[in-house]
């Protein structure tokens, strides 16, 4: 009996302590709540609602009509989806080759070079521009009556003039070029930071052993640059999957939807054709692709560090 009583005593003391902890915990949580409230109401709830909408038919009026996976089975049969996926893939490949590759090249070329800053400056400046502004500037360059065709014709290269923005896949490739003009600055900056972080000893040692030029770069510098390369490629991968602004300003995904990416297709289907359910299914597909690609990439990249 006494034993049991003792036991009860400890329990109530424990309860008191737990209550105290809980109260101070609540006090601490006040600092968390405002941010959680914002993110919860404006991001997480819409996120969940989009997942639900993707399984409905909804035109914006009345109530969404639950249809199960009908939007998804329509999606896999939609010819627009194939074109959209192909264009998105082009953007991914183009963004991995051009901004990342050229950024690395310019960084390595101008690192420790007298006057290197002045070579880098033109490449860095466009990074200060928004996607929309870059879209406006490059429309002027690439339109059929635009600057590039005008200059080609003036220097006697009429045969090289094209309707850069009017047919697939040239319109997507042209916009990738425009986007690379802007995005190379970021990779350049990050690779420079990475080059600075490389210790000089291994490079000097390799030089003493007779390595130079291409061999030095390929066997010594590039492996040492790997941590930064992982970051640059990861950023380029995710950004290219989500690309929207520059396409919206330059072609709006056209003509006749030939330059749409998944992000643009989602927007058009939702806000121009008012198919909220179908548009949401595309948003979910895009999210799955983005998350899956980042996850696979990070797993592979981090495992082999």
């Amino acid at each position: 009996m006494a034993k049991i009583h003792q036991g009860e005593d400890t329990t109530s003391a424990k309860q008191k302590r737990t209550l105290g902890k809980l109260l101070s915990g609540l006090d601490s949580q006040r600092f968390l709540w405002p941010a959680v409230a914002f993110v919860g109401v404006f991001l997480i709830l819409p996120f969940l609602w989009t997942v639900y909408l993707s399984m409905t038919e909804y035109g914006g009026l009345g109530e969404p009509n639950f249809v199960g996976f009908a939007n998804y089975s329509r999606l896999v049969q939609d010819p627009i989806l194939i074109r959209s996926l192909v264009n998105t893939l082009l953007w991914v490949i183009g963004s991995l080759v051009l901004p990342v590759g050229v950024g690395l090249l310019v960084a390595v070329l101008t690192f420790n070079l007298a006057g290197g800053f002045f070579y880098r400056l033109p490449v860095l400046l466009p990074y200060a521009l928004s996607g929309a502004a870059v879209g406006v500037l490059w429309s002027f360059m690439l339109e059929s009556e635009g600057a590039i065709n005008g200059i080609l014709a003036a220097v006697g290269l009429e045969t090289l003039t094209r309707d850069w923005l009017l047919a697939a896949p040239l319109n997507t490739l042209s916009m990738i070029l425009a986007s690379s003009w802007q995005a190379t600055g970021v990779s350049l900056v990050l690779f420079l930071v990475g080059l600075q972080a490389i210790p000089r000893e291994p490079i000097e040692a390799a030089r003493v052993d007779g390595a130079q030029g291409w061999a030095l770069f390929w066997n010594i510098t590039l492996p040492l640059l790997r941590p930064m390369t992982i970051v640059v490629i990861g950023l380029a991968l995710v950004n290219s999957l989500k690309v929207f602004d520059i396409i919206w300003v330059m072609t709006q995904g056209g003509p006749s939807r030939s330059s749409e990416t998944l992000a643009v297709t989602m927007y058009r289907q939702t806000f121009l054709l008012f198919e909220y359910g179908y548009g949401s299914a595309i948003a979910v597909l895009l999210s799955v692709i983005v998350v899956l690609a980042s996850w696979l990439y990070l797993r592979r990249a981090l495992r082999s560090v």
Partner: protein
Amino acid sequence: MRRALRHGIALAFAVLWAFPLYLVVINAATPAEEYAEKPFWALPSSFGLWENAVTAWQAAELGQSVGSTLLYAVGGGGAAVLLAASAAFAIIGLRIRYGFAWFMLLYAGTIFPFQMYLAPLFNAYSKVGLYDTRVGLLLIYTAITIPFAVFVLRNHFSGIPRELLESARIDGAASWTVLSRIYLPLSTNALAAVFVFQFTFIWNDLLFGLTLSRSAEVRPIMTALAVLQGQYASTSLPAVLAGALVASIPTFVLFLALQKLFVQAIAGVEK
């Protein structure tokens, strides 16, 4: 020889990048009546950048957009930094339960494409009267910039020695005092960097403005620019180019100001 080759290739890239910039600037400065006659690369007879910018300004009512966008970028970016600092303090400083899970929940906001939020936001905004209002855009810009700010500030706060917090506690300081007297003052650089980053993000946003606003008073600057491009590119291209350049001035200035710090960092190593 090798060095000469390096200079040559670097110069080629510099010219390749600078040439479009040159074309854009001189054509943005070309008076409208001269634009059709002059070759693209030739300098205009007079420098009409300002007149063209004014034309664009009036055509797209950019003035109102600039004011609204300043409000979104300063207000939304500022609020996000403060709310994120408070949350990061709860997670790192106060060590709340499930801190990492809360962090992941907040951080999840940057992982997904914005397309995941658009349709419900548009529907809900239309229902509750937030569609095409400054308050509505301010709210979403605050929310969307919180996750990244939490990410950076959480990292930064973990570098602040815990002894500072513990000794303040012994002196009887409340959590709020610890945050405002210790954590925030020790993080001014990080807070400023995050703010500049989020200011730039909001200033450059097109998608939320396109989806959640319509009127010239409310719509942010990049959305106004996209509208200008759609409506006037065929009639007055120099004005559209000038508009794009003028709309980019704030982020450009920030970039150049920070570039200085950045160059110092580079120059320190390149010796």
